[in-house]
C-alpha cells in the first residue's frame, strides 16, 4: 500500500512541477493567444541565472532564486518587446513560428555560456534527509517546489480573476481592437504577460534544476514535455494547468509503477500522456477548463 501512496505523492509532486512549467504557457496564451514554444529555453535560462547568482556571485540561494525571477521577469519582457511587438495582429501561426525562432536564438545565447555544453548542479541547501512518513518519502526540494508552485499559482489566479490589469489582460485576448478602444495598451499587456511567464519560468527552472541537475538538454526539453499538460488543462486556464499537471503526474507515476516491466512494456510514461490527452480532448474539445469559444451565428 505504501507503494501506492509513494506513487501518489510522487505523482502530485511531479504534477505540480508540471503545473508550474505549464503556467508560463498559460499566462502568455491567456492574453495573446500565442503558444510560446521557447518556454523550455526560458525555464533553462531561469535555472542557469539562479545557478550563476548562487555559485558565481555567491549570493545565498534563497535570494538568488528571487533575484532570478526578477531578472527573467525583465528579460522576458524585453524579449517580447524586441521580437514580438511588431507581430501584434499577425496570424497566430506566424507568431508561434517567431517563438520557434526565438528558441533557436536562446539556444545560441545559452551555448555562449558554459551552460550550453557543461553540467552543473546546485549546491545542497536543503536538509539531505527526506521527509518520511508511513514509508512514503518526499525530499525537501520537492516539498519546497510544491509550495512555491501553489503560492505562485494562487497569486496568478487571483491576479487574473480580480485585478483590473488581470481583467484587461483577458480582455485583450478577447478583442484587441475593443481593448484599445477603452484605453488598454495592448503592447503593455503583452509585455506583462511575457514578463509574468518569465517569472514563473525562473521559478520552475530553479525547482527542476534542483531535481535533475543543470543540463541544458534535459531542462529545455521540459518545454515540450509539459505540452500535454497545457492542452489538457485548456490552454488559458490556470486552474486547468494545476489539475492537468497533477493528473499527468499521477498518470506517469502510475504508468511506470504498474505498467512498465509488465507485458513487455517500458517507457509508457513518455507516451501515455499523449494518448490520454487525445481521448480526453475527444470528449472535452477545450481541455478540462479551457474556455469555450463563444460562437454565435
Amino acid at each position, binding site marked *: 500500500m505504501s507503494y501506492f501512496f509513494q506513487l501518489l505523492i510522487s505523482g502530485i509532486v511531479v504534477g505540480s512541477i508540471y503545473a508550474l512549467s505549464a503556467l508560463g504557457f498559460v499566462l502568455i496564451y491567456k492574453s495573446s493567444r500565442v503558444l510560446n514554444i521557447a518556454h523550455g529555453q526560458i525555464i533553462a535560462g531561469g535555472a542557469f541565472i539562479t545557478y550563476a547568482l548562487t555559485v558565481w556571485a555567491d549570493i545565498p540561494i534563497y535570494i538568488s532564486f528571487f533575484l532570478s525571477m526578477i531578472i527573467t521577469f525583465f528579460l522576458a519582457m524585453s524579449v517580447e518587446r524586441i521580437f514580438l511587438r511588431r507581430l501584434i495582429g499577425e496570424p*497566430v501561426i506566424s507568431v508561434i513560428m*517567431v517563438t520557434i*525562432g*526565438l528558441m533557436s536564438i536562446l539556444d*545560441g545565447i*545559452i*551555448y555562449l555560456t558554459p551552460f550550453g555544453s557543461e553540467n552543473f548542479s546546485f549546491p545542497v541547501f536543503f536538509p539531505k534527509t527526506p521527509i518520511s512518513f508511513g514509508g512514503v518519502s518526499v525530499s525537501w526540494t520537492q516539498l519546497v517546489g510544491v509550495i512555491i508552485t501553489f503560492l505562485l499559482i494562487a497569486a496568478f489566479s487571483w491576479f487574473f480573476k480580480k485585478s483590473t490589469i488581470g481583467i484587461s489582460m483577458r480582455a485583450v485576448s478577447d478583442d484587441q481592437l475593443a481593448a484599445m478602444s477603452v484605453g488598454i495598451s495592448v503592447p503593455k499587456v503583452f509585455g506583462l504577460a511575457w514578463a509574468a511567464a518569465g517569472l514563473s519560468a525562473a521559478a520552475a527552472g530553479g525547482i527542476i534544476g534542483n531535481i535533475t541537475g543543470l543540463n541544458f538538454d534535459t531542462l529545455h526539453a521540459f518545454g515540450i514535455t509539459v505540452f500535454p499538460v497545457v492542452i489538457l488543462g485548456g490552454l488559458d486556464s490556470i486552474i486547468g494547468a494545476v489539475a492537468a499537471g497533477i493528473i499527468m503526474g499521477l498518470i506517469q507515476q502510475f504508468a511506470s509503477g504498474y505498467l512498465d516491466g509488465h507485458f513487455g512494456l517500458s*517507457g509508457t510514461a513518455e507516451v501515455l500522456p499523449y494518448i490520454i490527452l487525445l481521448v480526453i480532448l475527444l470528449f472535452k*474539445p477545450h481541455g478540462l477548463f479551457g474556455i469555450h469559444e463563444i460562437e454565435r451565428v
Partner: protein
Amino acid sequence: MASNRWLTTGNYFTSYKQEQRIFLTHLDRTGFLIFLILLFVWPLVFPPSNKYMLVIDNILIAAVAVLGLNIATGFAGLISIGHAAFVGVGAYTAAFFAKTIGDSHVFLTHAWPLVILLSGFAGAFFGAVVGLPALRLKHLYLAIATLSFQMIFTWTINFMDFFDQGQTIPIARVFWFTGEVSRKEHYLFWYYAILVILILLGFMIRNLLRTRYGRCLVAVRDNDRAADAMGMHPGLTKVYAFALAGFMAGVAGALHAYLYRGVGIESFSLHESITYLAMAIVGGLGTLHGSFWGPAAIKMLDLFVENISEYAGSVLPATMNLTTALRPLSFGLVIVLFLMFEPRGIANWWRIFRSYTRLWPFRY
C-alpha cells in the same frame, strides 16, 4: 481575348474559361517552360559535388513535404506539428517492405515508383486518421492532436522490434533502365526522380486549387461555419486536408528512404516537424511556390551558417563556444527577422517582383 497574349497590358477576358488559365500570357508560360528545362539541364552542364546534390535532393524532398504541409496549414489553416511523422509513415512503409520481403527484393528496387505511391497512400491514410479529431477539435487543440501523433509515432517505432526500434533499416539501391543506380550517380538519379514527382504534384495541387476540391480548403480556414452553410462538411473537409497533406508527406518519406538508402526514426522527429513548419512559413503560407522557396531558403541558410561558423572558428580563438553558438543564433535570428519584417514569406517578394514586371512595359 485580345490578339496579343504575350503581354498582360491591354488584355481582357472574353470568356470565363480564359480566366481559368494558369498562365495568363504566353510570356508566363514560356518563361516557366524555360525554367523547367533549366532545372533538368543544369546538373549536366555544371555537375555539382555529391554533397550539394544531396542538399538539393533534400530541398526537393522537403518541398514535396512542405507542399503537403502547406495544404493543411497554409490553405486549410490547420496547424500541424507532426508533419515529420507523416513523412515517417511514408518512409516506414518502404521500410516495412524492406523488412518483410528483404531490402533488395525486386519490388523495392525495380517497382520503386509503386512503392512511392503506396507510401503516399499510407501517409494519406494516417493523415485521415489523425485528422479525425478535426471533427471535434479546433485551432491549437487540433494542432496538439498532430503533436500527439508525432509523439505516439516516435514511441511506437522505438518500441517495435519489427522496425529495429528506430535504428536505420537499410534499403537497397534501385534499378533503372540502365541497370543499378550506382553510388556515383545515386544523387543525380534521385534528383531527376524527385524533380519529376515534385513537378507532377505541384501541377496537380495547382489544378486542385482552382476547383471545388481546393476552394473548400480555404473556405474552412476562413470561416468554417459559413463553409458549413455552403454545403461543405467542415470536419470532413479538414480530414480530407490532412489526408492530402499526409499523401504528400508519405511520398516525401519514401523518397527520403530511397535517397538515404535507409530509414531511421531520427529523421522524423519533432524537430523535423518544426523545421517543416518553419519552411512553410518562411516560404509563404498559403502560396504554392512558397513551398519551394521555404525549403530552399532554410536548407541554404543552414549551409551558409555552417560555413560562417566554420570560418569564425578559424579566425576566433580556440574558445569553441562562440562558433558553437553562432549556428543556432543566426538561424533563429533569420527566422525571426523574416517573420518580423516579411511575415508573408519569400513568396511575397516574388509577388512584388511579379507585380513590378507583370505589366511591363507599361506600368498601368
